[in-house]
């Protein structure tokens, strides 16, 4: 055992995340641990523009992720993952050159910069006199002093066990429970040739429970999760493990007694919070400006037109504190804004990154996002929501004679060009004569974005943001997003059951 103890004594700093402000943390990591100096950054930007590019930026990222999984009442695995790298982007007009390096040595970064530079092939290259970095200090929408990463493993396990117990205790028909806890600290620094210099420390926490319920041959599943850009106080404030354990179990048990959903066109009530996924698919994606710049969205060239019911006012913003979609700065270093997309049904604006904003001659909206250093940014949603309405949710229910009421969803998808979208409820009910009656299962809702949004006939006064559980995929890049919505009635939509 002697040798083993000796091995454990050797201490290296790599697993200690630095502390302080985002800028101090990024500096401690990049300069202190990896030797990336301001002078290196200047020279790499210079190399990036050495072929005549108009603009270059560097995106440094260090992500530290831990996860613990419990299954069959056994803590099956814990994992630690480190991912670091720098992405070098060069723009020439609206053309992008991109390369990245996972090795942060000066030589490797220079190589990446020269590769990205090749997008431009000008004979004449402006001499750069060096860059003046303007160090931005954005306001912090997720000031997390203690992250879940700091929680000792034994304490994480206690919380996981509590969630598992809550699920099993809910009903003996719950046969299997899987609980996972994942937390990430993502430290980024963005440095641009036009002088933007900003660092951000982005915590992300997610806890999830998945249950299998069985009654004779009938097997159903349920799941529930919580999370966001939150730290330990979030976990300490409420008994989340217990709540999501019960919620996941309740969903699986409910579905054991659910009937097959009906088919055909009918009124659909979307419950508050999670149904915001409707906006994300029906409106959000088609309003990402890259699709509009290319003229491939059903909303292209329609600014100022009525594209939704006058009851709809829709925003996208990265400024919702601690939300899963929050960002202190986007991945191009721009600050988030309260971005009005649709006002009383009239299309007001798109979501932009640097390239599309330049194309439309507008300011970027803080929507330039990327999955990691290995990807170049594109216009993406942050937190998309429909503003509160005036109708009592009870009245909305009473307005429906025969229809369905949707509570929670497994996800959605949209075809940008023709506007067709689907979304898939997990918990939904039949509505008969103004009352919620039986739970239903196995259904998909399908609609056309502009068409469905025009059929929004009532908007409730019970606005809520969804739990922080959503991940959005586009062109192979995943980013966390948020959604929110009050109760909404869509007067007619196609419900696909059997």
């Amino acid at each position: 055992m002697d040798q083993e103890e000796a091995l454990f004594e050797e201490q290296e700093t790599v697993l200690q995340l630095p502390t302080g402000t985002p800028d101090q943390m990024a500096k401690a990591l990049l300069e202190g641990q990896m030797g990336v100096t301001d002078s290196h950054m200047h020279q790499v930007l210079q190399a990036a523009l050495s072929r005549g590019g108009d603009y270059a930026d560097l995106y440094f990222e260090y992500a530290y992720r831990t996860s613990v999984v419990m299954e069959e009442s056994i803590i099956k695995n814990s994992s630690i993952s480190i991912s670091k790298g720098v992405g070098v982007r060069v723009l020439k007009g609206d053309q992008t050159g991109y390369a990245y390096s996972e090795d942060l040595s000066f030589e490797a970064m220079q190589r990446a910069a020269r590769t990205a530079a090749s997008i431009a092939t000008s004979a004449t290259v402006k001499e750069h006199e060096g860059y003046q970095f303007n160090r931005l200090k954005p306001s912090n929408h997720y000031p997390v002093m203690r992250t879940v990463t700091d929680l000792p493993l034994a304490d994480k396990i206690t919380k996981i066990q509590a969630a598992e117990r809550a699920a099993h205790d809910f009903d003996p028909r719950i046969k299997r429970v899987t609980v996972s806890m994942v937390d990430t600290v993502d430290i980024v620094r963005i440095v641009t040739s036009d002088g933007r210099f900003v660092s951000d420390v982005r915590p992300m926490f997610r806890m999830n429970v998945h249950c299998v319920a069985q009654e004779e041959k009938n097997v159903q599943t349920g799941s529930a999760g919580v999370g966001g850009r939150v730290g330990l106080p979030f976990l300490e404030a409420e008994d989340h493990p217990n709540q999501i354990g019960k919620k996941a179990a309740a969903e699986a048990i409910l579905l054991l007694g659910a009937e097959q959903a009906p088919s055909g066109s009918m009124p659909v009530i979307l419950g508050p919070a999670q149904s915001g996924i409707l906006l994300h698919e029906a409106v959000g994606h088609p309003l990402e400006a890259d699709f509009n710049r290319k003229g491939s969205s059903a909303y292209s060239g329609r600014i100022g037109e009525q594209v939704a019911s006058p009851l709809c006012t829709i925003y996208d913003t990265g400024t919702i504190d601690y939300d899963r979609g929050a960002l202190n700065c986007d991945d191009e270093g721009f600050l988030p804004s309260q971005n009005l997309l649709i006002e009383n049904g009239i299309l007001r604006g798109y979501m932009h990154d640097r390239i599309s904003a330049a194309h439309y001659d507008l300011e970027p909206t803080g929507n330039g996002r990327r999955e990691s250093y290995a990807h170049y940014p594109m216009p993406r949603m942050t937190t998309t929501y429909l503003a509160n309405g005036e109708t009592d949710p009870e009245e909305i229910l009473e307005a429906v004679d025969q229809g369905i009421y949707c509570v929670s969803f497994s996800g959605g998808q949209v075809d940008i060009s023709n506007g067709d979208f689907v979304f898939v409820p997990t918990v939904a009910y039949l509505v008969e004569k103004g009352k919620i009656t039986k739970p239903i299962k196995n259904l998909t809702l399908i609609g056309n974005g502009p068409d469905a949004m025009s059929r929004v006939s009532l908007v409730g006064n019970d606005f809520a943001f969804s739990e922080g559980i959503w991940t959005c995929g586009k062109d192979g890049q995943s980013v966390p997003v948020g959604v929110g919505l009050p109760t909404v009635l869509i007067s007619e939509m196609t419900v696909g059951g059997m």
Partner: protein
Amino acid sequence: MIDQYKQLASNIVEYGKKLGADQVSTSLVNAVSFQVEVRDGKIESLKESGSAGMYVTLCKDQQRSTISSNDLRLETLRPLMRSAMQSLPFMGKDPFYSLPDPKLQGRADVTLEFSDPDFPIHQSEQKVEMAIELEEKTLALESSLRSEQAYYSDLVSHTVHADSNGFLDGYSKTLYSVGISVVTEDKATSGLNTGRKQTDGWFSSARFWEKLESLESIADKACQRTLRKLGAIKPPTCEVPVVFSAEMARSFLASCSSAMMGDHVFRKQSFLMDKLGELVANPQIQLSDQPLLSGMLGSRYFDSEGVIAKPLTLIEDGKLVNYMLSTYAGNKLKMESTGHAGGISNLVLEPGKYTEEELISSVDNGLYLTSMSGQGVNVTTGDYSRGAQGLWIREGKLAEPVSEFTIASTFQQMLHNLDLIGCEVDTRNPILTPPFRINKMSISGT
């Protein structure tokens, strides 16, 4: 590259043992990729990347912990491994976790062609030119088409696996892709307030440059597929036969195959659990996993645990005869690993004798399915409900395009109702399937 990674992998395994782990395994992957997107004859983006990843699993007394890192320096990996070792006492004991039986490990005794020796000779200029040419050829076919993007991409990857059983092996693979998507204006024939457009495209992908489809053929398919969507209407709510294009057949079989994966079965999350030996599909159906097909995208010598790859029959004359098992799933189900850690290799639905045209002409009134969307696939219960697009079939002929509707059934019924199998196999991905007909599904539209 492979030799250098083998050295690192065996160092890591040795270090894990030194730390007191009784079982250690590690995988290393390195990939170098190139991608260019063009639009309107101009480069939209050009991306080159090289990435690495290392995964290590450490186990002691049936307690397990894993790490992953893209920093492959020992001074990073060692403290990570030590920290994983320190977390082990907090883990539960899982009696089913083990490395594979060494007798099952090794490299299949065949030569698989999946690395193009000519990979380095193709220059960036040639690749960019190829995407530009594809775009030109496509747009020349029809003046109403606009380009969304044409692209070319390639990838060379190196993978090494090692464990404390003494397994140590690796391989390199190459992959090329070229494709285009185009968009055109459309008018909605019903519904409110739409600015409807239609987009579609086509791509080719292959492990060898010369196996890529001709640009003319890709352009032609992209054009046809987009134009045929114009003027789509919503079909009536009804029950009709559905012909799945090869791409949609692939999507269906991908979901089916996950129900045959051991980890879904022992978790009771498969509609095929407890069904071994039973008739689960139409007796014409022969489905197997074939890792040793030369040149195919899913081919491999061994699985991600180093278990030797060999063909496995899954459904024979409609009867479920095997699940696909990793070592862990095998231990759970008291069976041997079938070499399926990491999933399917090439999933093969044995082709029938009908051309796609014959499948279509077999339908009097029904749907030719070309696109599905949404997450309405429940492998636990077998429920299947998807958003869909396609073309209506009238009297055996393709008629008007249809969209904004759903199709629904269950896997159980679909497998039994899969009664006609086509003969033209799509080889662009690891699921090798022809189109087929399912003789009854629910359509929900108007």
